[in-house]
């Protein structure tokens, strides 16, 4: 039954999304202006032969890749160090505190993160970090309101860190005691034991953590649609510091933003195409996360 559900999910969404892919071809992934193009699709004539499908989703893809990539990259370092801290260095009292803290961070609903982001972080960035000259310098292409991809990526980091910490901590705890004691007997200090033995042993689990966190970050819709400005803008790294303050829109958040118009047939089909892309990429990622842990079994470790 579960299997049928899964297969049904892929097939149904693909069937609904197909017209959008088919009429755009490879250009579907190319550059375009999704905001105005979605508007055109929404207003397209009602005769099926005159549906407008033209869209290039590269800005949305770039937004997704940018926020997810940065969040996972930051989150990897943060959660690796936190996991090592929890397993090895934290005083027992702090360790007992940290576990509920990690669980709490995982349990906070995404809309609460979004609320904090839009009411606290975004105004802070707009008032204190972006100077007026900087706002004027890009005023003719976009407005810098403080709602930007870097703030979204930061909040996203906090959201995905608990997943990574849990996976890495579980793996670190399952490293055979004998290996650690052997190293300690050879006079290796505790940090080097962690870094050269434990962390190296659990490398597959770290990769799995990264992949699963990326899958989670890809699908985060509400929080990003609240914080990132939700404009299909393409931040250019060549803009220097301004780059960090430019708004984006991700695939998932454009689904949420456009949920109202799904009953317009070609518009709905375009949105379904976004969903299909997300579905496929997250399915591939969760399968890869499962597969990444396989090498650890050869050490006899089952995290």
């Amino acid at each position, binding site marked *: 039954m579960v299997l049928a559900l899964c297969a049904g999910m892929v097939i149904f969404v693909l069937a609904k999304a197909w017209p959008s892919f088919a009429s755009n071809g490879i250009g579907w992934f190319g550059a375009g202006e999704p905001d105005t193009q979605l508007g055109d699709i929404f207003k397209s004539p009602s005769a099926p032969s005159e549906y407008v499908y033209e869209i290039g989703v590269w800005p949305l893809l770039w937004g997704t890749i940018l926020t997810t990539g940065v969040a996972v990259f930051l989150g990897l370092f943060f959660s690796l*160090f936190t996991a090592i801290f929890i397993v*090895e260095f934290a005083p027992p009292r*702090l360790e007992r505190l940290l576990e*509920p803290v990690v669980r709490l961070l995982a*349990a*906070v609903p*995404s809309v609460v993160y979004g609320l904090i982001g839009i009411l606290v972080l975004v105004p802070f960035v707009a008032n204190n970090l972006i100077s007026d000259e900087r706002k004027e310098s890009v005023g003719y292409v976009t407005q810098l309101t403080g709602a930007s991809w870097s703030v979204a990526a930061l909040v996203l980091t906090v959201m995905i860190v608990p997943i990574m910490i849990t996976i890495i901590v579980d793996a670190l705890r399952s490293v055979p005691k004998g290996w650690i004691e052997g190293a300690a007997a050879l006079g290796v200090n505790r940090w080097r034991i962690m870094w050269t033995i434990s962390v190296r042993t659990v490398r597959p689990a770290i990769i799995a953590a990264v992949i699963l966190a990326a899958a989670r970050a890809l699908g985060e819709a509400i929080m990003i649609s609240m914080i990132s400005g939700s404009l299909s803008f393409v931040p250019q790294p060549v803009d220097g510091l301004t780059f960090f303050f430019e708004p984006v829109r991700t695939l998932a958040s454009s689904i949420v933003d456009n949920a109202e118009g799904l009953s317009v047939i070609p518009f709905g089909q375009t949105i379904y195409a976004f969903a299909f892309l997300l579905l496929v990429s997250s399915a591939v990622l969760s399968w890869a996360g499962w597969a990444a842990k396989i090498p650890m079994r050869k050490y006899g470790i089952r995290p």
Partner: protein
Amino acid sequence: MSASLTGGRTSAVESSRTWPLIDRIMLAFCWIAGITACVIAFAIVAFMAYKGLEFLRPNLFVERPNATFDQSKSGGFLDPLIGTILLTTMGTLVAIPASVAVAIWLTEYGRPFGLARAVESAVEIIAGTPSIVLAIFGLIIFQQEVFGFLSFRAEGGSVFGRSFFTAALMMSLIALPLIVGATREGLQAIPSHVREASYALGKSKWATIQRVLLPSVRPAIGTGTVLGMGRIAGDTAIVVVLLGASLQIQGYGDIPGLDILRGNGGTLTSYTYVNSPAGEGAAPDKAYAAAFVLLMISIGLNLFVSRLARSGKSASAAATR
């Protein structure tokens, strides 16, 4: 673990003073990361508590919301609160039997092997699917003519596909992987001699499952369920797409009770979303109050899980999945 390194801990833990500089810098990073995590969590809770308690009034709980620009008349969040409770209950009620059945089949039967593998990875995939994609999928499915009885028809005669029924069915998919995971862990923790003892007494396999195994995995099922409830209560995307995210619960149809379930509504999450600057009604104080209630619900469910886990000593590993 450090205790096992230094033996019975007669001396203090090895001092880091003799370590090379790079090691000490890395150790400092560990401390910073650990403390930062605590600070972020406490900052979130403290900030939400401060703002939430500042704007929370008892009347917010009993007044129905209205869409008006005059904030003194826009009411409270009675309807979203009912929506949250309704949706969570319905979602869990659907999810529990389905996922317990899947878990039992996977651990106790699991033949043919290939099928079991496939189901296992299908559960993984459902766990990894973003809720927004689940919502879109639900919309596609429930807009088919066959499922018209679950929601209502729009003016043009097409099935609208958005109702408490459809949203709860999709919400149950969010809870499913959590309950399956917890139940499987519970079942695997039961030693096989318990099953063999039951067979030796002449019980059939089904009777063993029913009388021996199910009662002993009840705490694990409970843990998974509460985790799933937390996830359902905190989800926004499905509410926005599949429930309409309206302020008031709008019944549809003539049969009392059923009309609400076939109609649109909202939950605390969508109420927060709509009232934040990202939505239409910019009423940050209402949003803060609703978000605070939401946060309290999810923290409360979490505390409940840790107590369950302490008594049932299982399935805490699934806590953050």
